[in-house]
């Protein structure tokens, strides 16, 4: 198993490398803290759980995955990450209806706290809800997605995947990389975390959406807004597509799925407008034939979509491992 101090020379030692109890959003992170997590994750990418049997760094620790909103992929990813590290992982599926009103969300937080978990992973349908819970518990909290606000591990795993695909070494940022993010930017926590992460790493980010799905003053986040996908694609080295929620496909936001595809779908013809060899990403689950054509999603070498899923586990392992260093009394992290 790789040494936890493998990146020690590049970052401040001990807790100074990552002085946060929680991971609530990319917005709370400095550039070097993002790079630290990416470098930590890079070593988990190569991790072979069979070979490493018996060296579980998080053995004896309890991680609760509290998901107040339905999720299969992210929950599975966090569960596998925790288990690969040897932690005891418990999943709590809280039906949204029973926790939406009154004090119940706080009560749930206090209940979780009373169970003395070593880390809590939370997903919730309301922006800011994870922070609200984090303020009430005594252990590290990881945001696995809160409303339209942030999904920090997704932003990190996407940056890791890009770095890997471009063969960039540990410690590298994404300076000058041209990235186009297209889709329902307004309602997307993935878009927000990616905008924050990519711009912090120096990428040149464009966002593309129909006006009804473009958040106001998004340029204040350091990105260039586009409504014309062809223009947004020109010269792009990475194209990141966002999932269009079913309920927004027909009606007030978008006339129909096929009209959406007509203007904003990533077809092979459109992809040809991007830089030669441009990489394709999607956080999943995909609406094939709506925001992305199958022939694009399945492009060997250029589509990073399944690599994103694999890296998701590595990023979540890194985040869980780093955030529990204090609980494990690692030197310099108490």
């Amino acid at each position, binding site marked *: 198993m790789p040494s936890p101090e493998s990146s020690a020379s590049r970052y401040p030692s001990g807790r100074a490398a990552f002085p946060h109890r929680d991971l609530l959003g990319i*917005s709370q992170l400095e550039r070097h803290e993002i790079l630290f997590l990416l470098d930590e994750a890079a070593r988990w990418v190569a991790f072979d759980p069979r070979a490493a049997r018996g060296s579980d760094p998080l053995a004896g620790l309890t991680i609760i995955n509290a998901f107040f909103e339905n999720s299969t992929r992210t929950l599975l990813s966090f569960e596998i990450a925790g288990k690969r590290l040897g932690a005891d992982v418990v999943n709590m599926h809280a039906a949204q209806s029973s926790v*939406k*009103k*009154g*004090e119940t*969300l*706080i009560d749930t937080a206090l209940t979780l706290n009373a169970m003395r978990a070593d880390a809590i992973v939370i997903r*919730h349908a*309301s*922006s*800011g*809800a994870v*922070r*609200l819970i984090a303020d009430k518990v005594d252990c590290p909290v990881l945001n696995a997605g*809160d*409303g*339209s*606000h*942030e999904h920090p591990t997704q932003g990190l795993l996407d940056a890791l995947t890009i770095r890997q695909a471009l063969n960039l070494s540990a410690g590298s940022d994404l300076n000058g990389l041209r990235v186009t993010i297209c889709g329902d930017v307004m*309602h997307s*926590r993935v878009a*927000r975390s990616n905008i924050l992460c990519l711009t912090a790493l120096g990428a040149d980010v464009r966002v593309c959406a129909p006006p009804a799905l473009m*958040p*106001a*003053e*998004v340029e*204040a*986040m350091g990105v260039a807004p586009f409504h014309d996908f062809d223009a947004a694609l020109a010269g792009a080295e990475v194209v990141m597509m966002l999932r269009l929620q079913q309920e927004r496909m027909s009606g007030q936001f978008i006339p129909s799925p096929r009209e959406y595809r007509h203007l904003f779908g990533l077809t092979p013809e459109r992809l040809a407008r991007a830089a030669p060899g441009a990489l394709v990403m999607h956080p999943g689950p995909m609406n094939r034939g709506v925001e992305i054509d199958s022939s694009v999603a399945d492009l060997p070498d250029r589509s990073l979509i399944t690599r994103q899923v694999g890296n998701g586990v590595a990023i979540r392992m890194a985040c869980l491992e780093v955030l529990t260093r204090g609980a494990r009394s690692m030197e310099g992290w108490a």
Partner: protein
Amino acid sequence: MSAPRPLTILGGRLVRPAGEPQPGGLRCENGRIVALGADVAAGDDDTVVDAKGALIAPGLVDLGVFAIDRPAFHFGGIVRAALMPDGDPPLDHPARVRFAAHSGKPDLWVHPLAAATRGLAGVELAELALMRDAGARAVATGRRWIADSGVMLRLLQYCAMLDLVVVVHAEDSALVGSAVATAGEMATRLGLPSAPREAEALAVARDTMLAELAGARLHIRQVTTAAGLELVRAAKARGVRVTAGVTPAHFALSDMELADFRTFARLSPPLRSEADRQAVLAALADGTIDVISSGHDPRGPEDKRLPFADAAPGMAGAETLLPLTLALVRDCHIDLARAFALLAANPARLLGVDAGVLAPGMEADVALVDPARPWLVDSDKMAAAAGNTPFDRRPVEGRAVALFKGGVKVG
């Protein structure tokens, strides 16, 4: 109740309708002011109060509160509060209006605002004349805007006939939808549902135009954007009988307060941009805004300790109304006389009550105010029923040190 002993307050500085405060005192008899000035003398049976140099000011008249919260009102120097009709059940029935009108006496006068429509649903007119005669001082649309322009016109025409002011909330409801913030950088960063600030101007434009058509008196309880204020300014200039109000939140805070999802800053209308805040300050100075009210709406943790978008809007504002308005005087946006016009004289005139100014014949509603007294707003130590103030931990200056309602000390 037997008549109280006459009251004489001496040794203060009288707040006048215009100009600087003048040294002097005032005398009240049978609940009314009978004399004021530098040469007021106490009668033999009078209760005599030494103001010790404090301002002798009219008691505040708070136009538009959501709860009767006597300790908070008295702390804030408020002796009259116009109650919004949004209770459960709403004030849409004469009996409820009559009950509300008597609920605070004798030491706090509650002026109910009758629900404009049944259940505040914006569809059918409520029994407005019966409620007027039961004690309603004006009519209000409540927290919401009446979306149907036909209903709104008929409401305004009916209220013009009754000579009742219609107090409205000005936000285009379809444009607002489920928004909890003003569209802009902060809402975008936080991922909160937001609506463009133009939602207010659209509502102001329609309501002022319909009021003009109906010849009705319209009071827009909160105007919080540059475009909305410009429309009010223009309507006033062409003679529309429109007045505008605001709460301290919209002249003292911007949507930067939403950072960290602070639900105490979840208000309706939502906090605006810094440019809009500056426009509110300018409108306070140039007379476009007529009333500053507290919007007092105490909310406990069950309503506020929630994710931002799920939390109820509103702030406990009664205690901070006076000091935050006095801060406008200190910062030279307005003078002291205008501050009390905004806090007392204008809302009293709108409600048609003989109060809000210190003059012979007026109700003896008097606040002694130490305008320089410093204190710290502390959400945990509020007099209000709940501590949901967006001004938590803010040092302020100005306190009511004594309060008289009808010549009787109430606080």
